[in-house]
Each structure stands twice: as structure tokens, then as C-alpha cells.
């Protein structure tokens, strides 16, 4: 009996009932016998040398477990890409939230009192706070030149185009930091002792990153480190690398005290101390012909990485590759750098460098169009990538791409042309100026270049004698729907009812390394492995002569029971194999950067109140082609949530820096939009199945953060004539621009 397909249907979330009824257990819901609580004492200056640490009277210090850098038995660095970030500062302080001392005690309230009684005496050194200061190199705070990583992309012969160009148009763009603001703050519990090794439970995206990070810290064999993901309340990239540091801290306290230790950040600590989106500066110099063709693009893209390298090189890579967008240009040069400053390290945030460079590009495309006297849509149409053309990294587009069609549909759904005409007519008589603008963009799914090949991810699928099937992967459910989608994929591959599928809790002792939960790769890359492993499991049963080619769930159950009786265990694994034709040159930064791109056109309609210079998004059309849509409700939720975060990025979320420290680390003053500030977000999908994704799916998670900011600022310019090239666009900035008379 053939079951109804689940892919393409909005089946119920696997863990939805537990979350809705409050039964889901997050790390702070867990308690262990004899457990201590742990807190972090941080530096208070952005840069300097530690002279002395003293403990003032006021608490019974004898009851506390105290860990300093000197207590670390292994290597005091967070293993990720480079080894520059210590778990605890030894001598040098490089940002004002650097962990220096860890404290543990049974009474978590007394810990707060104790935390204030630890004095860190320092000799300050001159700090560096901006990209410009870092590049000027007056103070060298990292390596030889304050540069974590630099890339150079060369396509064609850019130097030859300037003389031939009809116009050369230049401008600079800037984006700010952004806090992820997942609902659940970072938290971790550790049990650690010489007999059992180290086990941590916590909120995280990437259990195997934490595993890798704890190995050198404790200098233990692999099997002595175990990492278990607890139910996780959102990540957005903010729990990609930071949990490694926190896991290390909890484990160090647990090791020294011999007792379980729980560390849970409050919102204020989570906001000021953990990673945020990299601020960026982009300079575009663009050569165009009279007829509106791009003939040369020179792009300088710089990001502020904060005090340590963390993931900056990878964020920079994605931002660099996306910086020329969904356009064909024969001659391109991108020069990019990630630089060091004395602020807490910036890290992964949904979009991962692409929202920064695409903001610059999509604002610049409107700018160039205006300079040429072309409509923004017409100028883009003349330059869109399509099948047979190449991207900035010379990646040949092999799949059907119809950006002009997507643009037509998005403009139609937003009534763009009629509104543009109406606003132009009505704005002069009104104190509220209305405008409409859009952005066209792409987002590559999966790791960049040869990243997926290097990761070589593995997924397992196992079955019980009752025919219950379980997916084994380290890919985490963090609210985005991993459990549901993996179950859908495996159910369809095995032709079983969705209810018969489950997903194992990620635990490095039991699940294979399917790679990190990042880069819009969970469905497109890991989902494909789930599909392959499920098919392999079915083929085992068919191969063993226990299952016919067409079968019912009951026949499947009997086959599982028979197989397990005979062979003891029923499990199949699948490992990543690169699709054919992918060639990437990491030296020259040329070749096939991503297996597949998702494509989108976002249209924003805004009103700008010239009394207060506040901008409100009135309507938002998000139209995208993401391959096959696996679960319409989850997919629409991803887009709506991403657009909401994008609206926050564009108009509200302003990290106020004061001497390298976030001064507005509270939700009262770091403003994320509420439902009253958001537009109706209208989501549309067009489907063009990708040959190497499960059921044709591509990446979706990060895409929706790339488009809102440029679309909104293009709309603001349409409304007011003000050419703001910086986000967040606060009313204060817009008023200042209006005063300056920056009108066209």
C-alpha cells in the first residue's frame, strides 16, 4: 500500500507538541545532583595587560571554585580555524568582555555578589575600534597588519575597461552590527572528571564544533569528550561557535570542582559578550556602457571581525563571493579583508557576510541605474545572470534561472509600477512620503567551494524491530524544522507514514558527524544524505530478500524484525559525495563556489513620516525560487522570520558602541521590531527542482536576510530622494540627511 507523500505538505512539526505544551526541556530546565552554578568574570577594558587579580572581602571565598588560565591543563585556545582565542585571558586582554576568571558555587545568587568582588587590575593599551583604524595600522593588535584574512577575486581584465567605459560610477556603503536575539540565551552544563572524561549538555547549533573545541582544552582522547544538544531556542548563527567557549568554561569549572556545573547567560550578558553580525564597509566602482551593460566591477569589501579570528575568514569568503550578486559582468575584481578591532569577536549570523555585501550591491545597482537614466528594473534586466553565463568567480550557471521572470512576478504582486507612479504624484502634497523599492539577489546553499567535500558529512538511518525508523545526524533542530524535514525526507524515501519516523537527539556518542547546522545546508546537503541513507536501508532489506519492491508499512515492520533477528542491527550510513562538475580553486578564488543558488526578488513599500523621519514598512513581497518547497508552512515561516530580522537590520537594530562595548545590551534599548512595526509579509515560492537536493530542494534559511535591507533603503530613496547608504537607517540619520539637502 503506497503512502501519501509527505514532502510538499505542511505536516505537523515533530517536536511541536512538546514546545507548545512546555514539556520540551531546554538546558536551564535540567538539574543534576550536587550541581554548581558558574559565572564568568570579564575584563573591563578593551585592551591591556593583566597585572593582578584580587578577591575582595564580602563572600566566603573558600566555598567557591575559582578557575583562571593557569588552571588549564591542556591548550588554552578555542580550536576552530585559527588558534588565537583563549578560553581565559592569561596576560593580554583584547576586548572588554574577555573572560578572565570563572567562579562556581551552589548558590547562583551569591555568585552574582562574588562576581562584583573580583578585581582585575590592568595596564591599558591603546585600542582599535574601527575598520579604518585597523587598516591604518597605527596600533597593531593582531598578526602583522591587523588583517585576519584577505581575498582577491579576478575575473577577466578589469584594468582594461576603465578607458572603454561610458560611465564609471563609485559609491561607498556601510552596515552595522546586529545581535541574533534568539529566544533562549546561551547555556551549558558540564560533567567533567579524569575517570569519565568531559560531557556537556547545552544549547548549540554544532555539536561536533564543541567536541573539536574541547579536545585540546582537556587533552583527552576523542571518546572521552561527549557533546549533547538539548532543545535549542533559536541560533541564527549565534550558537555556531560561541557555545564552544561556554562549554569549555563550564567543563573547566566542573573539572576543578568535581561536580556538575551549569552556566546560563542572562540576556544582558548574552547581548554584550557573545558574537554579532560583522559590521562592514564596501566600496563599488562600476564601469557601464551607455546601453546599461555592466562591463567592469571593482569591489572593495571590508568587515570588522572583532578581537579574534573566529569565523571571520569564512564570513568574508561568503560576502566576497556574493558581492557581485546575480549579475553577469565580464570583468570583476573583488578585494576583501576581515580586520581585527578591540570589540568582542563578531561571528556567524544568518546570511553570513552576504547581507552585508548584497546590501552594498543592491543599493549601488539603483544608484547606477539612476545615473544612467534607467529604471532600476530595466537596468537589472539587462545584466541578469542566466543559464550559460558566469558569476564573479567564473562559475558557469548550468541550471535554468529566470530572474527576469521572478522580477516580473514580484513587481506584479506588489503593484510596483502603478505605485511608483501614484507615489510620485501624491508625495509632494503629503508630510508622509511613500516609496517602493526592490532588491534582486542570490544565496549559495551549503559550504563554499570545496568545503562540503572537506567536511565529508555522514548521516545514519536505523530501524527497530517494530519498524520505527530513526535518523542519526548531528544537524540540530534549533526551531527551523530539521526534525520535521528529515522525517519527511526519510518517510518518503522509505514509503512509510511520517509518524513512523523520528530523529535522534544529537549526541556525539551516538550520531555521526553530519557537519554543522549552518550555511543553508541542512536540507539541501544533509537532507540529501538522509534520503540516500534511507534508500540504502530499504535496499538492505530488499537485498536480504526480506522486502518486496512494493511494500506496506506492516511488511516493512516484519522485514525489520527479520533482519534484526538475523543480523543484530539494521542501520545504513551515507556519506557526502560532491555532485559532478564542481571545481573550485581556493588559491585564485575562482570556480564553482556553490552547488546551487537560490534566487529571489524582494519588494518593500515604505512610508517616511517627515515629522519624525521614522520609516515604516507597509507592505513586503518576498518572492523566491528555492528548488522544491519541502514543507510550505515551515518554508513560509523561514522567509517571514528572515524578513522580519531583515527589517530590524535595516531600520531598528542599532548596536550602540561605547569604547568597544555594546552600550545598549538590553531589549529596552536595542530595538527589535514588534509585530506592530512589521509589514504584512507576503511570501511566494516558485519551484525549480535542483537535481542534487532531496526531492529537488535547495537552501532557504539564510536567503531572506539578504534582500530586505537594500529593498527598504531603495524604497526610502524612492520616497524621499535621500540617498542613505548606511544601515541601520535610524530616523536621526534620515533627518540629518534631509537637513543636509542630500536630495537628488
Amino acid at each position, binding site marked *: 500500500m503506497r503512502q501519501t507523500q509527505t514532502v510538499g505538505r505542511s505536516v505537523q512539526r515533530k517536536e511541536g507538541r512538546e514546545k507548545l505544551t512546555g514539556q520540551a526541556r531546554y538546558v536551564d530546565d535540567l538539574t543534576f545532583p550536587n550541581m554548581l552554578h558558574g559565572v564568568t568574570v570579564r575584563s573591563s577594558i578593551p585592551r591591556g595587560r593583566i597585572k593582578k587579580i584580587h578577591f575582595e572581602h564580602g563572600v566566603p571565598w573558600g566555598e567557591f571554585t575559582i578557575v583562571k588560565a593557569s588552571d588549564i591543563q591542556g591548550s588554552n585556545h578555542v580550536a576552530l580555524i585559527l588558534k588565537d582565542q583563549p578560553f581565559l585571558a592569561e596576560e593580554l586582554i583584547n576586548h572588554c568582555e574577555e573572560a578572565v576568571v570563572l567562579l562556581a558555587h551552589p548558590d547562583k*545568587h*551569591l555568585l*552574582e*555578589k562574588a562576581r*562584583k568582588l573580583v578585581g582585575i587590575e590592568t595596564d591599558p593599551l591603546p585600542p582599535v575600534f574601527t575598520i579604518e583604524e585597523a587598516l591604518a595600522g597605527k596600533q597593531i593588535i593582531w598578526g602583522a597588519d591587523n588583517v585576519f584574512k584577505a581575498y582577491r577575486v579576478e575575473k577577466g581584465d578589469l584594468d582594461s575597461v576603465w578607458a572603454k567605459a561610458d560611465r564609471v560610477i563609485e559609491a561607498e556603503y556601510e552596515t552595522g552590527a546586529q545581535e541574533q536575539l534568539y529566544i533562549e540565551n546561551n547555556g551549558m552544563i558540564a560533567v567533567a572528571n579524569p575517570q569519565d572524561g568531559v560531557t556537556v549538555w547545552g544549547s548549540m547549533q554544532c555539536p561536533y564544533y564543541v567536541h573539536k573545541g574541547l579536545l585540546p582544552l582537556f587533552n583527552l582522547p576523542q571518546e572521552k569528550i561527549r557533546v549533547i544538544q538539548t532543545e535549542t531556542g533559536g541560533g541564527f548563527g549565534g550558537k555556531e561557535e560561541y557555545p564552544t567557549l561556554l562549554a569549555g568554561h563550564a567543563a573547566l569549572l566542573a573539572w576543578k570542582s568535581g561536580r556538575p556545573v551549569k552556566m546560563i547567560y*542572562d540576556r*544582558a550578558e548574552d547581548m554584550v559578550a557573545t558574537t554579532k553580525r560583522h559590521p562592514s564597509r564596501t566600496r563599488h566602482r562600476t564601469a557601464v556602457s551607455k546601453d546599461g551593460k555592466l562591463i567592469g566591477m571593482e569591489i572593495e569589501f571590508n568587515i570588522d571581525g572583532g578581537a579574534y579570528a573566529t569565523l571571520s575568514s569564512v564570513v568574508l569568503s561568503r560576502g566576497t563571493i556574493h558581492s557581485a550578486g546575480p549579475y553577469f559582468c565580464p570583468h570583476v575584481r573583488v578585494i576583501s579583508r576581515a580586520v581585527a578591532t578591540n570589540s568582542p569577536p563578531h561571528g556567524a549570523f544568518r546570511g553570513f557576510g552576504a547581507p552585508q555585501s548584497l546590501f552594498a550591491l543592491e543599493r549601488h545597482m539603483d544608484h547606477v541605474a539612476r545615473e544612467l537614466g534607467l529604471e532600476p528594473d530595466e537596468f537589472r534586466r539587462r545584466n541578469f545572470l542566466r543559464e550559460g553565463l558566469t558569476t564573479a568567480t567564473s562559475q558557469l550557471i548550468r541550471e535554468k534561472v529566470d530572474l527576469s521572470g521572478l522580477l516580473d512576478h514580484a513587481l506584479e504582486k506588489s503593484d510596483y509600477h502603478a505605485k511608483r507612479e501614484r507615489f510620485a504624484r501624491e508625495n509632494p502634497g503629503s*508630510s508622509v512620503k511613500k516609496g517602493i523599492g526592490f532588491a534582486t539577489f542570490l544565496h549559495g546553499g551549503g559550504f563554499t567551494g570545496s568545503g562540503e567535500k572537506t567536511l565529508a558529512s555522514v548521516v545514519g538511518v536505523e530501524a527497530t524491530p517494530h519498524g520505527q525508523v530513526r535518523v542519526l545526524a548531528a544537524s540540530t533542530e534549533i526551531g527551523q524544522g530539521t526534525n520535521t524535514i528529515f522525517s519527511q525526507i526519510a518517510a518518503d524515501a522509505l514509503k512509510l507514514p511520517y509518524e513512523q519516523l523520528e530523529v535522534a537527539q544529537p549526541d556525539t556518542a551516538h550520531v555521526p558527524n553530519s557537519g554543522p547546522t549552518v550555511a543553508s545546508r541542512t536540507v539541501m546537503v544533509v537532507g540529501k544524505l538522509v534520503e540516500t541513507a534511507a534508500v540504502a536501508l530499504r535496499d538492505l532489506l530488499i537485498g536480504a530478500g526480506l522486502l518486496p519492491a512494493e511494500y506496506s508499512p506492516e511488511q516493512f515492520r516484519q522485514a525489520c524484525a527479520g533482519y534484526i533477528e538475523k543480523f543484530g542491527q539494521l542501520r545504513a550510513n551515507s556519506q557526502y559525495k560532491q555532485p559532478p562538475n564542481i571545481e573550485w580553486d581556493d588559491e585564485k578564488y575562482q570556480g564553482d563556489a556553490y552547488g546551487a543558488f537560490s534566487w529571489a526578488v524582494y519588494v518593500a513599500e515604505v512610508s517616511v513620516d*517627515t*515629522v*519624525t*523621519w*521614522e520609516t515604516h514598512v507597509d507592505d513586503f513581497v518576498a518572492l523566491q525560487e528555492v528548488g522544491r518547497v519541502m514543507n510550505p508552512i515551515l518554508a513560509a515561516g523561514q522567509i517571514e522570520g528572515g524578513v522580519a530580522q531583515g527589517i530590524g537590520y535595516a531600520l*531598528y537594530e542599532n548596536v*550602540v558602541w561605547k569604547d568597544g562595548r555594546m*552600550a*545598549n545590551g*538590553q531589549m*529596552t*534599548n536595542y*530595538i527589535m*521590531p*514588534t509585530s*506592530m*512595526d512589521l509589514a504584512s509579509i507576503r511570501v511566494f515560492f516558485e519551484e525549480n527542482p535542483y537535481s542534487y537536493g532531496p526531492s529537488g530542494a535547495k537552501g532557504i534559511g539564510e536567503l531572506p536576510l539578504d534582500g530586505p535591507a537594500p529593498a527598504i533603503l531603495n524604497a526610502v530613496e524612492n520616497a524621499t530622494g535621500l540617498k542613505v547608504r548606511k544601515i541601520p537607517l535610524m*530616523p*536621526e540619520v534620515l*533627518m*540629518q540627511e534631509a*537637513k543636509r539637502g542630500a536630495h537628488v
Partner: protein
Amino acid sequence: MRAYLPDYEMITAPSLQGALEVLARGEFRPFAGGTDLMVLFEAGKLSHHKWLSIWGLDELRGIRVEAAHIAMGALTTYSQIQRDATVQAEFPLLIEAARLTGAIAIQNRGTLGGNIVNASPAADSPPALLVYEAELELVSCVGGKIVSRWVSYRDFHTGYKSTLLKKGELLRTIRLPRTLGAEKGWVQHYRKVGTRKAQAISKICIAAAARVEGAKITDARIALGSVAPVPMRCLKTEAYLRGKDLGLAASWMGEARAVIASEISPIDDIRSNADYRRGVTQNLLEEFVKKLSSGSTR
């Protein structure tokens, strides 16, 4: 929670008199809805440690409608204000202020009296109360008796976070004269410019009322929040507006904008900056005058 709870003490009193007796000793401070104090407590920044909860004192609750006034107990919450029919009919600025304060949970717990004595220049209700020329009853316990005195709210704020309230004194009643509702021709206006549309602290807040006869402004009251160390009445601007012909507004608007800018002393802070506050204050005044010209009332 960053405060160490055992370091704090909270007591209650059985009656207003009992509470005043405790306060008279000077050791304890009053704790009403707690919506401001709990934020400080959570952040470990509540420096005073001894608190007297007055939440249970029902004699400080309720809205009484009298012939010439309405009298609100200091513990009246924003939610209660929004539900009261007389306030709705005659004091729309206060309704707006209550509606725009915090979230619903805050409106259920936060009190008008607390909003006044907390003395934040960014509070939402003070500009409305200033326009309505509120009077405050301050009570204390002297020789075992409750002693009461009335002060004009306009004089209450004496500097940043400082007020006329003496040690041992408690705000009992907020009284609003029913003038604007009774007299004809008053146009009322409230606008909070917050950091977002809800759950926001104001960058600038204006409450205003003006009486228009024909095309002439015969009286005006304008109050602002977040543009000075205290919530303020703009007396110079009011004087400037009195007698002005709305038909000629284009000719004097520039001057009116200059007058209001001269009265305020905004600063740069975490939410906004002085330039913006000055510019938008001027725009808000202009918007109010335009509303008067268009003859719309609310």
C-alpha cells in the same frame, strides 16, 4: 537576576497611616507596582535595600469623579485609567499616554503615582498631566496624624530625578480639573515618538491643547517629555501662540519653532540625540498647529 536577594528587605503595612509611620523613620522607601524598580533589581543596580510595599493599600486606589475634578489614587494603574469612562471622555491625552506605556503586563501593574515619583523625564504620562494642570496631594505622618498638602504638578519636578517630595511623604492623590472638557473649543493632541510603535521608551513626547476661536488661538498648553531634565511645560511657546491667527501661520511658524527650540535642553543618549530631539520637537509643534488649522478635534 544579578541582585543578591538576601541583601534586600521588603515589608508591608496594614494601612496608609501605618505605612506613613514606617516611611517617617526614613529607612524604608515606598515600592508600588515595581515596574521601574524591578528592572534595576534584575540588573543588580538597585542601590537602596529596604522597601515598603504599598501595593496592598486600597485607599490609594480608584478614580473618583467630582464636579470640578477627577481624583485618582496614586496606585491607579494604566489599565484602570484606560477603562474609566470619564477619563476617556475628558482626558484623552492621559488615555493615549496609558495606552502607549510599556506592554500590557506593565500597564496592569504600573501606577500613575509611580510614574510621577520615579521622575523620569522620558515617562509617558507627565506631559499629559502637565497639560491638564494636575495637582498632587502629598501626605505624611506627623505626631501620629496624617497630614496632607497640595502642590501643583507643574512645580513638582525640581531637577533631574528630584522632586518636591520630602522624606516620609507619599503621593496619595492626583487631581485633574475638568476644565478642558467643560470649555468649548479646546483641541487636544498627544504624540509619543518612541524607538518603535509599542513597548518603547520615548525619544520625544508631546501633549498639547489649545483653544481656538474663529482662526485665533486664545489659549495654549504644551508639555514635552524627553527633551529636558524634567517633563516640562513650554510656557514661552504657549505665550507666543496666544493670540496668533492660524490663517497667518506660515508667517509666524518659523518664529514659533525658534521659541520652542529655545525652551528645551535635549541631550544625546542611548536612544537618540539632541539634534534629532530639537528638530522633531519643532516638527511636532508645527504638526499640532496644522491640526489646529485643519479644525480637527479629538
